[in-house]
């Protein structure tokens, strides 16, 4: 058994230790990481002020219908009237702040971030995605990060945020009832990324014909209210299979025939793709690259792939395999992403943060909330976050943060509590010699041991 340091465990697999976490746990953090995986409901996020995507879409519809002109202006001035977009954003970010600061290790939150960067939606894409991206995370990602991959794939593919992001909701089979009446047709956006990004990957060798066929398979996948002018109903904002928009007839995708003619056709394709060996390999490799290194020993990814295939895509089993693999505890190389840096810094210093600050800092450091600017997500290479003035930006922020720390905090004690045995003599020396407490803390947050994981 390789020595698995508590400090590596917290920084590499979690959101960083809070003061006291390392000493409580002794030297082997595997137990506490594995325990977190078994905690019931640990991945879920619920709360009275968190609305479902359907509720958000419905509420927005209502607010859009408020009368225009003088009366509308009067209503909007009432103090209790909060536009739905702002209400949603504030409640959602606040819930993430509360969660990130309170969890034991943060392993599950890291998994949520990982999967949100796999099933990417961008808030910058359009208003519906902007309003429902966080709900997408709660409804399509969180329930399955410790469950089955296929379930996540299905939930993500049916979610209004994803359907809106890929313009799927308006994609119509050209020979369907609606297609023939309206002359509308389909687009390939969702189909192509479903193959390339969500499942088998471009190296699996599918063709344009496969993309075209899958785009037809997915026609009819929509949600109530997608067109904006539907009448409000109980299921407004919910997934809705529009049979009249679905391309009739069977399809062939990646050498498999799908004779089904309805929603079950798409479900069958998703099921096949979720279990595909190429999917297993890609997911395993991405997990290992994210948590361990850009060039991991191949046997880690091979073991995770095997577990994925044997277990039918059991993601908890995959993560357990990764954590228990000795080579997953190798040298610290990767630079923390801006989000990992922000949460671990707040946890280390015992500081809170408000919603506006989180949004500002993450944008400034290059990882705006739920908005990665491309369907392949934020970069995940070790040096992705090292370029240019990224590090001076981090220092500027670290200094801003360190200035807020309460006055009785002992920087050296905190250094030991946060970095444990990984702290080098040089880092300790520079922190000890700092001329102010806040300078010492800024140096701690910027030390190589804190920046790398």
């Amino acid at each position, binding site marked *: 058994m390789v020595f698995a340091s508590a400090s590596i465990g917290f920084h590499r697999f979690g959101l960083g230790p809070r003061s006291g976490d390392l000493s409580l746990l002794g030297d082997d953090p595997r137990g506490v990481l594995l325990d977190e995986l078994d905690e019931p409901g640990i991945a879920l996020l619920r709360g009275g002020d968190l609305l479902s995507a359907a509720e958000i879409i419905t509420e927005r519809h209502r607010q859009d219908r408020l009368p225009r002109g003088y009366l509308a202006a009067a209503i909007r001035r009432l103090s209790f009237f909060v536009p739905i977009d*702002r209400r949603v954003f504030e409640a959602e970010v606040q819930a993430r702040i509360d969660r990130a600061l309170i969890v034991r290790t943060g392993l599950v939150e890291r998994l949520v971030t990982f999967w949100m960067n796999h099933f990417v939606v961008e808030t910058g894409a359009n208003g519906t995605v902007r309003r429902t991206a966080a709900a997408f995370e709660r409804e399509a990602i969180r329930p399955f990060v410790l469950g089955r991959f296929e379930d996540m794939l299905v939930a993500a593919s049916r979610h209004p945020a994803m359907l809106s992001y890929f313009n799927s909701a308006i994609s119509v089979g050209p020979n369907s009832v609606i297609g023939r009446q309206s002359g509308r047709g389909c687009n390939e956006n969702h189909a192509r990324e479903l193959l*390339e990004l969500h499942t088998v990957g471009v190296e699996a060798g599918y063709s344009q014909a496969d993309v075209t066929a899958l785009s037809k398979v997915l026609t009819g996948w929509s949600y109530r209210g997608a067109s904006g002018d539907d009448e409000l109903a109980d299921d407004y904002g919910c997934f809705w299979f529009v049979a009249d928009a679905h391309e009739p007839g069977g399809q062939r995708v990646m050498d498999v025939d799908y004779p089904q003619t309805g929603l079950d056709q798409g479900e069958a394709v998703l099921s096949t793709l979720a279990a595909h060996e190429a999917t297993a390999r890609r997911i395993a490799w991405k997990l290992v690259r994210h948590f361990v290194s850009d060039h991991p020993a191949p046997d880690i990814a091979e073991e995770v792939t095997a577990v994925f295939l044997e277990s039918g895509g059991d993601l908890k089993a995959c993560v357990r395999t990764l954590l228990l693999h000795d080579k997953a505890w190798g040298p610290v190389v990767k630079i923390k992403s801006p989000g990992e840096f922000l949460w671990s810094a707040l946890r280390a210093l015992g500081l809170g943060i408000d919603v506006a600050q989180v949004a500002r800092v993450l944008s400034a450091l290059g990882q705006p909330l739920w908005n990665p600017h491309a369907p392949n997500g934020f970069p995940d290479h070790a040096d992705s976050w090292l370029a240019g003035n990224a590090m001076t930006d981090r220092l500027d922020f670290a200094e801003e943060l360190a200035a807020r720390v309460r006055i009785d905090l002992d920087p050296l004690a905190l250094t030991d509590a946060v970095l444990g045995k990984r702290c*080098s003599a040089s880092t300790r020396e520079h922190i000890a010699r700092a001329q102010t407490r806040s300078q010492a803390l800024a140096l701690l947050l910027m030390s190589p041991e804190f920046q790398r994981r």
Partner: protein
Amino acid sequence: MPPTCISSGSFVAWSRTPRTVYAAPRDPRMVVVILRGALDGLAVVPPIGDPNYARLRGELAIGVAGIGRILSLDGFFSLHDAMRTLHAHYVAGDTLIVHAVATPYRDRSHFDGQDVLESGMPGPRDTVSGWLNRAVLELPVGDQIEVARPVGLAISPTVPLIFRGAAPTLTWTPPNFQSASPDTQSRLLELYGEIDPALLRAFVEGREIDSLSGHGDVPVPRTKTAGPSFREAAEGAAKLLAAESGPRIAALVFDGWDTHANEGAEHGKLARLLAALDDALDGLASGLKSVWHDTVIVVITEFGRTARINGNEGTDHGTATTAFLMGGAVKGGRVVADWPGLGNSQLHQGRDLMPTTDLRAVLKGLLRDHLGVSEFALSQRVFPSSIAVRPLNGLIG
């Protein structure tokens, strides 16, 4: 509120200057603008003279009576109404448009397409280095020039593939925080120097960039949550390129061109993006005014979009598209195109504008005539296996 921006910008640059290869004192600047997501070339430079154009483009056929205004170019091609700056420079002889152009990539994955566009390799997933980085290694270095010292900058926190490689590169983002105290900075430099050379290098570079861009001199807005706009990125680039001791080659990356649905004609999603791009070009042109005669801006994208409108008033991934060259050094005022036509049998695989010009020919002509990179190096190292792709002549001058 979450940012509602449609894009991020990024730019990277080098300070290495090939001025000695020229008899006359020239000090060329080059800006590469990469549009990620696949620009619809047929929408931005509509071939209104092609008999099939109106039929293929349906409701999006701007320039057709009743659908939308256009800016006139040469009678056959016109320009989208949002591109006012580009058009003004066309009229002034500083804009050259290349149509029906494509990289050698013929499939339709954004990410593979971007790999080929930025790596300069014949195929995807060969992503060790980018063509612009390799071109920098080939710049003629004269004895008047100081040893290459990177003074780079990027408005994204990551290095785009086009810049990756052996030549030192830097990136820059507009400042969002108050600058940390110089004392803390120097202590951190000392610490990195002792135990982490990679962080040291990153931090030293970041400080140089910050000082070049004037960070620390100006108060930073505390409320900003959106990423930089196209124009902010462009103005940052221009300021640095125009500086006497600043970098000479830069690139900006603008995202968001993947118009699968509701692309719009004169107004709409694409028009808004084009207006933002045109505004960025104006920012570049204004900032580079003093060195305009030595400047080339080249705008490229990974591939084009389908010739026909899809079922959702948008366009899917296609093949050939347009590229733009703008700057005082450009021999402009014309559209360069070996026009393939838009008839069904003339389309690539029956669906896309057929590529008739290899984008590498454009870039090779530019790198040879503007920056002085040798043809041999261009065919062997900058764009490997491209000996059959001859550089386009007469782009510069």
